């Protein structure tokens, strides 16, 4: 319903987002990262369910522009099956390119990148406990 409507991937991940939701909180195998705020116009929560070094599954919650929601969804799909090291190689530019995010929306993607970083950081810090 805007000029962006011709972006097929954007529409798919926005209207039928995979990975939407969250895992039961407090599980030791779930790492979580948050970034953004209402004031910034974007807020993302990313969770990864770990199996050893691997991301078995990922979930997101997002509040923000359509690109931020779609990108968060796309990211959960992307992360699934990656090792933590591989996951930390996924950056804002790759996400933006995949979803054809316009330049003026890169800010939202950077917030998403922050959430991923926080989540991976959280995952690594948890590994000590196991």
């Amino acid at each position, binding site marked *: *319903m805007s000029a962006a409507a011709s972006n097929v991937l954007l529409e798919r991940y926005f209207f039928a*987002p995979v990975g939407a939701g969250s895992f039961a909180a407090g599980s030791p195998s779930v790492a979580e990262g948050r970034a953004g*705020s*209402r004031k910034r*116009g974007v*807020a993302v929560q990313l969770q990864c369910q770990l199996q050893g070094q691997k991301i078995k599954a990922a979930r997101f919650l*997002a*509040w923000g*522009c359509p690109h931020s*929601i779609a990108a968060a969804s796309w990211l959960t799909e992307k992360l699934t099956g990656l090792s933590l090291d591989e996951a930390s190689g996924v950056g804002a530019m790759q996400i933006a390119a995949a979803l054809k995010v316009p330049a003026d929306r890169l800010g939202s993607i950077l917030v998403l990148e922050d959430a991923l970083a926080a989540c991976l950081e959280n995952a690594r810090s948890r590994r000590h406990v196991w």
Partner: protein
Amino acid sequence: MAGLTMGSRMIYLDYAATTPVDAQVIELMNQCLGEDGDFANPSSLHGPGLAARARVEIARGHVAALLGAGSEEIVFTSGATEADNMAIRGGALYQAHRGRHIITSRSEHRAVLDSCKALEKEGFEVTWLSPAEQGRVSVAQLREALRPDTTLVSLMHVNNETGLIQDIQSLGALCREQGVLFHVDAAQSAGKLPIDLGRLPVDLMSFSAHKIYGPKGIGALFVRREPRCNLFPVMFGGGQEQGLRPGTLATHQIAGMGKAFELAATRMQADQARLVGLRQRLWQGLQKIGGVSANGALESCAPNILNVSFQGVEGESLMFGLTGLALSSGSACASSNREPSYVLRALGLDDQAAQASLRFSLGRSTGIEDIDAALAMLEEQLKRLRELAPPWVQ
């Protein structure tokens, strides 16, 4: 009633941005276009020219009649934007020897705001009133702002984003008492609320045809004769429209505007009564969904507009999600850029709340089933997007 749906069940709820042209208006316009119609230049003195001129003058009469004005007080323009420019710039420049202070409010249409800002750059002083609750400017507030060198006050009748009705009668009375020109942008009220310029203390009033089922690209400025209101022209040329607005008169556009105003005169009461009912249904439905607040008390607003803030969702995603609804999140003009509505900001909303607001504007083809379908779509998207939002976001 059929309801105005387009393509794959698109429900049009953006009548405040623009309306479809009425079938009778289209028919009349078509009589002024082709070889067999009154296509000649209304300024030409030959027979075909006089026939076109007659079309223009009949239309002028209809516009004047709806407003309780004299025909000679109606100057056709390319729209309300141009009328606003003419009134504000033309009035301020004409009065510049008396003073260089003008007053307006922060929630005016951009045609008014930007006209005032342009004057500011040329050395005029502008007082920008911050409307109080719901966007209303009070007489006391205006009185306080008036100065001996104030020459012009510009305040709109009905706000295009919230529908708020300004008390132009009282505000105008104060202006008249102080000998200050009073301009009112009535683009959103003409044909929707009764306007009687025979009684209203208004010197200049702007109109647009495309907000009431007439064509885009045509409007008018009312310029009072008694007491006479003089303007400096903003455009120069062939001397048409009493020297105030040059350019070949666009017969089909003017005739279309005249017909639209003629139809409004007969339909206004019934149309608006019906819209009050539809808006009520919409508002009740929204309240049932929950997490909503109206930007403006319904009874203070024009019956065709309902502006609502939605809690717990981000505005752009809400709009993007509502693929079946054609409506605006800000004013139509502002909606090409992503800045939050300055009108809602002026009402005290923060950026996010302003952005998560929708303007529902209803019209002649809106039916009950459109309202119900819109509510169903809203409910679905609101539920989905609220569930997607992290609970820790305020």
